[in-house]
């Protein structure tokens, strides 16, 4: 016997599972994701720069932060020397978030998009933002 019904049913399930990403995105536009650097602190900078170049920060910031934590917590070292030779205090709240005071429009933008949940805010207090 052929089990036609069961095979067709199985194939329908397979088809749905295999093309699920397409089905889930039917008719949805590809959202543009651009973290905002529009904060008073950054706007006030004569030459906009972070502790490291933008491309490096984009892909390596998690490692840098991880490293910073270890430096402070384990080694008591509170100074970071950037690749440009400048010294920066190692501090999430006083260095990073001083400029990037807009967590929702900066950090969360990509993190939410990528479904990444950094555990920074498990210990640190998230900045109180004035504007939503």
């Amino acid at each position, binding site marked *: *016997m*052929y*089990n*036609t019904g069961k*095979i067709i049913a*199985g*194939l329908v399930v*397979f*088809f749905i599972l*295999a*093309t*699920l*990403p*397409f089905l*889930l*995105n*039917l*008719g*949805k*536009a*590809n*959202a543009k*994701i651009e973290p905002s650097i529009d904060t008073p602190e950054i706007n006030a900078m004569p030459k906009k720069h972070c502790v490291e170049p933008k*491309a490096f920060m*984009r*892909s*390596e910031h*998690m*490692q840098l*932060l*991880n490293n910073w934590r270890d430096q402070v917590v384990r080694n008591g070292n509170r100074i970071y020397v950037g690749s440009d030779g400048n010294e920066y205090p190692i501090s999430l709240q006083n260095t990073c978030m001083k400029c990037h005071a807009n967590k929702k429009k900066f950090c969360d933008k*990509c993190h939410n*998009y*990528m*479904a*990444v*949940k950094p*555990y920074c805010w498990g210990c640190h207090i998230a900045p109180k933002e004035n504007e939503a």
Partner: protein
Amino acid sequence: MKTVLPFIAVVILVLLPLFGVTVAHQTQIFFGVVVPYTAVAVFVFGFIYRILQWGKSPVPFCIPTTCGQQKSLPWIKQDKLENPVTTMQVVGRMLLEVLVFRSLFRNMKTEMKEGKAVYGSEKLLWLAGLAFHWSFLFIFVRHYRFFVQDVPTAIQLMEGMDSFFQIGAPLFYMTDAVILGAVTFLLVRRVYLPQIRYISLAADFFPLFLILAIAISGILMRYFFKTHIVAVKQLAIGLVSLNPTIPEGIGAIFYVHLFLICVLLMYFPFSKLMHMGGVFLSPTRNMANDSRIVRYINPWNYPVHVHTYEEYEDDFREKMKKAGLPVEKE
């Protein structure tokens, strides 16, 4: 030969996109759009085609391999999962088979010791097989975060589980280590064990090398040669919403990873990897042992030439009468 050639093939498959996107930027369209669409189409329709091809052949007889007590007298306990008679019991048996590799769990090792055969426990193949398939599935599902804009909680939970130990940044996935370990074991086993090496074909090494290369490229990308991950998701979403774009800033390593996956997808329907679909069609596992309870129908059953009783009696009538046997015709 059967080991080296597949290895060389995979190396070439790695180099193709690597040089492609590095040397000529325009090939990104090819590797990022054309190949993925082709691969998905080949995979989905190839898979369906193969299943339909198998389905075209009927199952003429009810031939389950029974691995436990049959259903007979009411006071004898039937082994419902190993010798099913109802559809639900068959489903149970199949679930055990597909989800936990029940049959492979029975595996054991035969050795000659002190002049006699002894059977030792051998669960490594089962364990490695299970680890490989489950981590592959886990990793596959985890990748859905690239394909849906609002990632469902379930996927996030899975990811949380996978990176439960919160080692390093980005968080280390356990399944990455498991799949590398399992595939390596399966590969080493094929090279090292004489029996397995003897039976192996190039077609057994190729998928292992390919999957290993996929896993390694993925791991390199996540932990070492990082790429612009948001752009990657933009590309992915573009593909699945049928509105492909090639965002800036995606490294060659991504195209290597993607291309190898595409090759795997295209290779899948035409290879032994179809065991994924085939296991559901295996008559020794997916049938109920009920052929004495309900008549099983063979669609091509045809009349055959038999030696009838009448012919038999004609041959032996005198001898039968002499021996006192009743006959139809005197």
